[in-house]
């Protein structure tokens, strides 16, 4: 069950991206109105806009936060062919009282000749580094060698992907067993069967990024891509937002088995594929532990996906863009009735649909802005079982034959949903 809160974003045009900072207390939105807004969460849970400023001379496609170890830093990218890095300046006490803060531009990255479609900071163990990707298919990796000087960034790598790029994702794994890795998605629309997801890996020997893999099964335009946080697994998990939601595992093959010197190749499996959105999926986002994936689609819904402890992925929740629950409320009747007569103290109100039953205060997961920004970026959610979803949310795949006295046809669970 979700509590949805609406925020009047006051952008004058479509909102293209929403991004939470590392601790989930600040939020940035960017829009076709060429501005970026920063929102801060107050003690009582309300979001206030603490900064709003023009950032580019074209639509701003994405905005992202750097790790707080580097201070309060944002990066944005735009149709105007540039990406920019911004730092918050601690303002005058007047501003603080008014609840406003100032952001100054530290650098503009102007190397791209076409619209810059995504910008993402690298994992913090790599230093202060970011990657951009452009509509002309070039991925650029920049580094700021002095983390205290955000105006000095140098272009370290240029990767030509051959297809127009729409999204990138750094592998967050800080394990020494994994070299830096970046996934690139393409929304190239021309009719071809080229792989729309490519994986590039840094080679310590050549000191360059080289293509390590291409997901041949993804041939439709890709809108978003996201590596899951690594829990010490030897393999990687990648989510792809395309015409459906897909989750891949990539197991690095042992170096001895690969041909080209030094590069690992991967054993790729698709562990889940969901077309429940029944439309283009625009965003995918992982929670902190990489155990829940959120996706948003053109059906105006956000869906949550979770694997049970036998590694079967299922839907555990659906949220409509306007905050109303989907399907679940109609089933209230079955679970609502009290047991036996009215004077029993064991009134069975084990009702899964009522929002008042929480042991913990509900997590506020505000969805800002227009439907274009139903970007579900996750904070740790309270684990929920949703009856509103046509899936076995109980994570117990015990193949027990249902008794006849069953109140809900649980054996109709689409056990084969996905894979």
């Amino acid at each position, binding site marked *: 069950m979700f509590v949805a809160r609406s925020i009047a974003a006051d952008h004058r045009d479509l909102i293209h991206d929403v991004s939470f900072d590392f601790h989930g207390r600040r939020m940035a939105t960017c829009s076709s109105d060429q501005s970026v807004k920063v929102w801060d969460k107050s003690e009582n849970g309300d979001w206030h806009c603490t900064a709003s400023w023009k950032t580019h001379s074209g639509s701003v496609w994405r905005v992202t936060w750097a790790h707080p170890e580097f201070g309060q830093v944002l990066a944005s990218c735009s149709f105007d062919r540039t990406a920019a890095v911004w730092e918050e300046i601690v303002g005058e006490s007047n501003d603080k009282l008014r609840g406003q803060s100032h952001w100054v531009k530290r650098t503009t990255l102007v190397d791209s000749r076409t619209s810059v479609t995504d910008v993402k900071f690298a994992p913090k163990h790599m230093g202060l580094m970011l990657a951009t990707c452009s509509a002309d298919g070039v991925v650029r990796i920049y580094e700021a060698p002095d983390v205290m000087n955000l105006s000095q960034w140098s272009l370290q790598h240029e990767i030509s992907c051959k297809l127009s790029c729409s999204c990138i994702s750094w592998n967050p794994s800080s394990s020494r067993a994994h070299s830096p890795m970046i996934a690139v998605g393409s929304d190239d629309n021309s009719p071809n069967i080229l792989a729309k997801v490519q994986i590039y890996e840094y080679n310590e020997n050549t000191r360059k990024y080289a293509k390590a893999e291409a997901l041949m099964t993804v041939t439709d335009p890709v809108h978003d891509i996201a590596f899951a946080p690594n829990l010490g697994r030897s393999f990687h998990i990648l989510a792809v937002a395309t015409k459906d939601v897909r989750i891949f595992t990539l197991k690095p093959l042992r170096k001895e088995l690969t041909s080209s010197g030094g590069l690992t190749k991967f054993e790729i499996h698709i562990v889940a594929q969901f077309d429940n959105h029944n439309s283009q999926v625009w965003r995918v986002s992982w929670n902190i532990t990489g155990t829940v994936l959120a996706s948003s689609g053109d059906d105006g819904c956000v869906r949550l996906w979770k694997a049970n*402890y036998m590694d079967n992925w299922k839907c555990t929740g659906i949220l409509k863009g306007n905050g109303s629950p989907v399907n679940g409320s109609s089933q209230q009747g079955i679970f609502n009735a009290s*047991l036996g007569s009215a004077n029993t103290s064991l009134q069975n109100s084990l009702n899964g649909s009522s929002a008042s039953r929480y042991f913990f205060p509900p997590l506020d997961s505000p969805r800002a802005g227009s439907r274009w920004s139903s970007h579900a970026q996750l904070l*740790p959610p309270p684990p929920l*079982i949703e009856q509103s979803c046509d899936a076995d949310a109980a994570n117990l795949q015990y193949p*027990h034959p249902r008794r006849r006295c069953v109140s809900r046809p649980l054996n109709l669970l689409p056990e084969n949903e996905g894979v």
Partner: protein
Amino acid sequence: SVSTQDPALHGQYSTQVSILSAMELIWNLCEILFVEAAAAGPLLLRLLDWVRLHVCDVDSMVREVLGSENPSKHKLFWNVVDIFVLQGRMDEARHLLSKEATANPTSMNMYKILDDLMKKMPVPTLGNTQTLTELELKWQHWHEECQRYLQDGTFASNPHMESICKILLGDEDAILEKKELMTTWYHFLVTRLLYSHPTVKPMELRFYAQSSMDLFLGGESSPEPLDMILMAAFEFEMHQVIKECSIVLSNWWFVAHLTDLLDHCKLLQSHNLYFGSNMREFLLLEYASGLFSHHSLWQLGVDYFDHCPEYGRVYLELHIERIPLSTEQKALKVLRICEQRQMHEQVRSVCKIMAMKALRNNRLGSALSWSIRAKDAAFATLISDRFLKDYCERGCFSDLDLIDNLGPSMLLSDRLTFLGKYREFHRLYGEKRFPEAARLLLTLMTAHIAPCSFWMTLLTDALPLLEQKEIIFSAEQTYELMRCLEDLTAGNPDKQKFQEDDVETTKVEMLRLALARNLARVIVKEGTVEGS
């Protein structure tokens, strides 16, 4: 919950209470069946306790009747007697019946017989005073005796007592007539067992449970989630119990703890599912993760993660670094937890974040202490530089307390060491311990503790010492100073800078003059023989 006036709140609280009661009911049953694994005999006694404890709607009725002046005349009198019998509370039933007997002497005979039957009823005992076979035998005899009295029409004139006798005989219809009193099918189940199969074995429960539910509900109503959970328990389907609870409860609290308990009793593994212990950890991880989204309950989550051997640590690492460090207190709490568990990277990260925040707000002292805690030499150097820069610009130090009390942490970075020592120099100067101050000042340069960029400032600091009436620097020290000055000016490739900058040139000139004068004085002093 009863005291709340606000109806909405009241509603919410009573919902919570009923959920909690339902959980208690399930938990206790699981304890009896799974944990204690009560065997035939004690099993029935436990189930009777369970029913008495949890199905207690009748308590108010009982109180009312017993509290009245003339209980046997109370309209609910026989209800209370019946419920006592249904729950196997023989002594209490007999006590009430005696009141009826005294009030109605005509039924004395009947009463005596019934009372005797009830007294003699064989029940399982705890402890090994009788075997099941003995019990069954005794029970058979007793059952036959009851049967005889019933068939003889002993109780024919008193329908209440006759009904009680039928109940004693385990007559299902007679028991079912008291549906309203029992209120639940599981009460019915236990009553049935008491009066027809007191030596029921655990594995036989499932059949009785199923038929009890069918008979009780009678096709009028369908079972509810709670019923299904209890049924699964009676069928010893532990996993089913967990599964049903998971579906119906809104969070993992109950399920995680129940699974944990069962796992500790090694019950999940024995149920031929190899992932028994993984399921326990899975649920605990889920529960604890949920706790982390709460502003204060996250601290409980830490302990839960500690008890998850496989993934607990990594989950904790990932969750704890996301705790918003809104106050220094909170940051310290997080740090303590990480330090206790040797999560060095998280410690470093939290300290760095706090140091950065402090630095941005120009709280250099705070930033420095966080860097020291993070053992972040690079950042400590950076902040020390800031301090020194501040000093150069303003002529005084901020956060003196901190710098004065650095202690061994001063050694974290060279720059920090210099900062500490330089401040010490100022302290010595302030305390007029000039020779010591002088020595320290010199050491800072000769031992290369001071960065070259700072030498000018140090030499300038030496000026007042050189111009004291008393001679402070010895000849050798003066030579050292002069050498430092020459190193500084000669080493500077851009001599023009010194020439263009008037202030700098003047300073150098003054220094050279002061050093020369001091040298002159000290040579004379040191050359003078005492007493001559």
